[in-house]
């Protein structure tokens, strides 16, 4: 125990004495593996939702090109209907990512502390013991490498890049023009989507204001319905509990508006990025339309 405490003093970060042993490393590893599994699941879900989302956006783009009003009317509600699902998937993925990162950092800290403890023991151990201690030290090294490789750089959660629309050195002016045109088409689609989002947010905000007025009407905060002489009697007051079962999964209007605003920000960022890239391509073409 004393050795553990000495080691602890040398270990950066906050670790309790009971965290500096093999069991602590094993339990952190088990927790890490559990969290990693959840992370992989939510990442797959996010990927699948993103693929569907992109496919809908691409369909909308095609419908715009064909000027197919029926397809546009069919696709816009589908895109708006995916907002909630996409928000949930993104939230869960971000949470799982943060949990995974925390679990990984904890495991690496415990491995480091345990390796320091092992190296202290190595100084005093006989030759026979030294072999087993070195084996364990190497095992910890391997585990640390594995976890650090898995963690790697964090993937940003953004709408996908469009690598096929990058300007490549071998591109001819005609190809660059085609790419710039496609980017501008995409910007136009996103502009229409932003218009739809604005009108949907506006509609929900009006609904929210109406809900607010109706809630105020129910609450009677100024006590305007109180009657002489008392309060809580059997007159105009009385019992009437609203016990309708609460639907915890149903997002509130404020939540829906927040989701749409987040989506709008995301779409706006991407729109601006595509616009910049299109302008860059046009500049390379020397302003040729």
């Amino acid at each position, binding site marked *: 125990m004393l050795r553990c405490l000495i080691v602890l003093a040398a270990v950066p970060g906050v670790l309790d004495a009971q965290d500096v042993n093999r069991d602590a490393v094993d339990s952190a590893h088990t927790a890490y593996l559990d969290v990693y599994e959840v992370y992989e699941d939510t990442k797959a879900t996010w990927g699948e939702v993103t693929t569907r989302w992109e496919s809908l956006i691409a369909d909308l783009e095609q419908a715009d090109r064909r000027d197919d009003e029926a397809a546009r009317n069919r696709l816009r509600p589908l895109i708006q209907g995916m907002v909630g699902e996409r928000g949930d998937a993104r939230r869960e993925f971000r949470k799982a990512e943060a949990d995974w990162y925390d679990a990984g950092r904890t495991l690496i800290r415990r491995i480091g502390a345990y390796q320091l403890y092992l190296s202290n023991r190595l100084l005093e151990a006989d030759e026979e013991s030294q072999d087993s201690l070195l084996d364990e030290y190497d095992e910890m090294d391997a585990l640390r490498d594995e976890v650090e490789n898995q963690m790697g750089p964090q993937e940003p959660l953004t709408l996908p890049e469009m690598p096929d629309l990058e300007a490549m050195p071998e591109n001819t002016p005609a190809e660059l023009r085609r790419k710039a045109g496609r980017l501008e088409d995409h910007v136009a689609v996103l502009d229409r989507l932003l218009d739809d989002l604005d009108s949907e947010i506006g509609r929900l905000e009006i609904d929210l204001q*109406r809900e607010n007025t109706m809630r105020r009407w129910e*609450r009677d905060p100024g006590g*305007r319905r109180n*009657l002489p002489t008392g309060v809580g009697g*059997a007159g105009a007051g009385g*019992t*009437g509990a609203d016990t309708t079962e*609460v639907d915890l999964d149903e997002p509130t209007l404020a939540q829906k508006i927040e989701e749409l605003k987040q989506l709008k920000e995301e779409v706006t960022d991407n729109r601006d990025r595509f616009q910049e890239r299109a302008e860059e391509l046009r500049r390379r073409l020397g302003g040729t339309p």
Partner: protein
Amino acid sequence: MRRAGVFLALAFLVFCGGPRTLEAQLGIGGSLTGRTALELYRGDFSAVTHPIVDSAESVIAVASEWEFLLGRAFAHSSRRFEVTVDGTLQQFATAGFLQRNYAPRTQSFSLQTLYTERLEAGTLTLDAQVGTRGISDLTPMPLYLPPGYLAYSLDAGFSRRVSENTGVDAHVRFQDRDYAGPSVLQTLDYLDLRSFEVHAGGDRVSYGTPGTDDYSTLRVFAAYLHQRYPLQGHRRDHKVQVGSRWYLDRWETWGLRVTLDASGILNRSNSSRVEYNAARIAATARQRLGERYLLLLTGIWSGKSYLGPQEFLVPGEEADNAAIFEGELSRVLGAGISVSAGGSWTRAETNISGDYYQRVRFYVGLDKILGF
């Protein structure tokens, strides 16, 4: 005011702290309302709330009113925790009293915490509330203003769906209300109340046109209340209440929501003078008009019949028979602001001597949605 200060400090701590085990999902949201009202009071009703009798039969008041509501919710998987704080400030200027004109000011605050957890068997709710009201320069009748008090209540409920369309629920509720009267008005303490309630009900949902969110709910409930008025001697009231609520939601197709409440009360007591039967009917309609308008209408009627002869209005009981009609038209202006204009008519009478109290009120106001 000291009590209000303590209350606000408590509200601040609860509101800004929140539970550490639940992930915050939402910011702080709410609303602020400012309103100007013109009120006309008439009547010869005598109330327990003021020692002075002014023989004016009608008075007029102009009121400036501010209301705020702030709420914050925390949610984690099947659990949800909500904190709500609301407050109201009213400043009146009066005219028409024979002795002197009054300038009453009222402030009321309430703090509500609501915990909801969805369990396998149903949904559990725990609701704790504390509220306070203070008033200065209290007016005599006919300008009735509710007296100051400190009240708290605790409610535990459980509800579950027994089929796709049917749910049942049960609640137990405890409430304590302590009226704060000036030393010259100790009779206000007669209104102090402790109440314990057991409440059970069921509801059935019927869905409207397929493909829409239209639905209606019929709810029936029964409750037993045991009420004590500590400063009215040994008085113990036993109330049985049965009632129903019909709620129609045609918001999506007609822009209409309607609520109808009907209930009856049998009040029995070890003090025979407060034994009565009472009935109450209330209706509220909310109608969306066009893109931005909203019409709100409410009507309430209540009647009471004592079993024995009454010589005076019993402290703690409201006026015997009352009717309230209210209406408001509001318009969404944009940027989270709505403007509203409305009016109400209230009349209360007592069977004892035919005394009455009447209030007519007109107002205009602005509502602002708050979000942080």
